[in-house]
């Protein structure tokens, strides 16, 4: 049998859709871990990226920190924290936040730093304060790239939140690790399929979000290019 046979058989069993530890429950748990981590990462990385992109100071540092943080293996951080702070929310939150920061930080920085200098000068020339320049001109123009960063971060954390279940917590990883422990491949395949579907849904979600929040003027401009 192939992966899809196993996964489909498991996903279509109605017993897996009801009660404690069902697919909807674990998906919600997974989205909870991922959402919390993405929110906190965004609260750290977006202001930092905007500030550095606007002032141009510390650009080299951002790129290098972004790259260095990518090297940190999430599972190692997760396990290390689990050994020292037995099961507080920080155990799963910190590694996932660390995972989501680099793409958001680097894209936000590049978006803001890449704003056309002419546009920047025009904003200044019309008498905007620094705050107005940032919030009304630079951030809206950088928004498509900021969203790309958030999307990448979201894809990372939604997938990697699976590892949280290795520590005995919930989420889609529960199916995978319980299946592996009991030498039963069906839930492993089912869990992997659920992860893939979640990832594609994240992609769709951000495509819709980009349509909704990117200023109309920017979209028109791009179409005419």
């Amino acid at each position, binding site marked *: 049998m192939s992966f899809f046979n196993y996964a489909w058989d498991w996903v279509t069993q109605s017993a897996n859709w009801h009660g404690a530890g069902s697919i909807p429950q674990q998906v919600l748990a997974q989205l909870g871990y991922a959402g919390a981590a993405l929110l906190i990462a965004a609260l750290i990385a977006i202001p930092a990226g905007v500030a550095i992109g606007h002032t141009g100071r510390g650009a080299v540092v951002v790129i290098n920190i972004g790259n260095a943080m990518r090297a940190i293996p999430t599972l190692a951080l997760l396990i290390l924290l689990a050994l020292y702070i037995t099961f507080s929310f920080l155990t799963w939150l910190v590694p996932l936040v660390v995972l989501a920061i680099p793409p958001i930080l680097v894209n936000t920085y590049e978006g803001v730093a890449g704003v056309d200098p002419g546009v920047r000068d025009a904003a200044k020339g019309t008498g905007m304060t620094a705050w107005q320049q940032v919030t009304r001109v630079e951030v809206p123009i950088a928004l498509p790239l900021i969203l790309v960063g958030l999307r990448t971060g979201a894809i990372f954390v939604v997938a990697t939140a699976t590892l949280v279940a290795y520590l005995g917590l919930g989420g889609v990883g529960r199916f*995978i690790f319980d299946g592996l422990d009991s030498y039963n491949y069906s839930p492993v*395949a089912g869990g*992997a399929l659920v992860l893939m579907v979640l990832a594609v849904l994240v992609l769709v979600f951000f495509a819709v979000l980009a349509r909704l929040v990117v200023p109309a003027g920017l979209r028109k401009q791009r179409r005419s290019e």
Partner: protein
Amino acid sequence: MNWSWIPAHGSEIWAYAKDSALLGITPALLGLVISLPLGIVAARWRWFNAPVLGVVSVLYAIPSIALFFALIPALGLTDTNVIVALTLFSLCVIFPNVVAGLHAVPDSVRQSATAMGYGALRRLAMVELPLAVPVIIGGLRVAVVSSISLTSVSQLIGVYSLSYYLIDGYQRQFPTEIYVALVLIIVLAVACDLVLVGVRRVLTPWMARS
């Protein structure tokens, strides 16, 4: 931290580190080898670009972690499984950069090369690809660092590497092993990253040394 554990397990640590290097670097190189021809074709014939980029962005969304488990029926609990999953990931990071790097070559440069008598192939090899090197290596850096970092979960599907120390250290509540794995995985990733920065410098001697 139990320092004496490290020298006592020196040869074992070295062997696992080599496994991690193999599992992490191979996919990035395979990703490059596949992305180069695909990217060159996509950059030249734009109609090829949109469908490939569509496939690539969906593949990119498919988590490597899910792929590790999804490939079990086809490839088993093997190195090949890990390498195939990470190669797909690398491909998705490198291919867009190959296309972007080639597109970023200014038309004036391309025309100058043609005016100097360069044919399409020679122009590609001598002018366009060298100019695209920084962007391509940028993608390769992300691919190799992420791949090495992702090998840290290989032990979950029974593939031995430094990842073994994470799982063993957790099960035995022995932090030394976890520190060793964490530090060595980061060192390996950073070392590969630095090598690529060096390669870029050698290949693009005209660029400012920054």
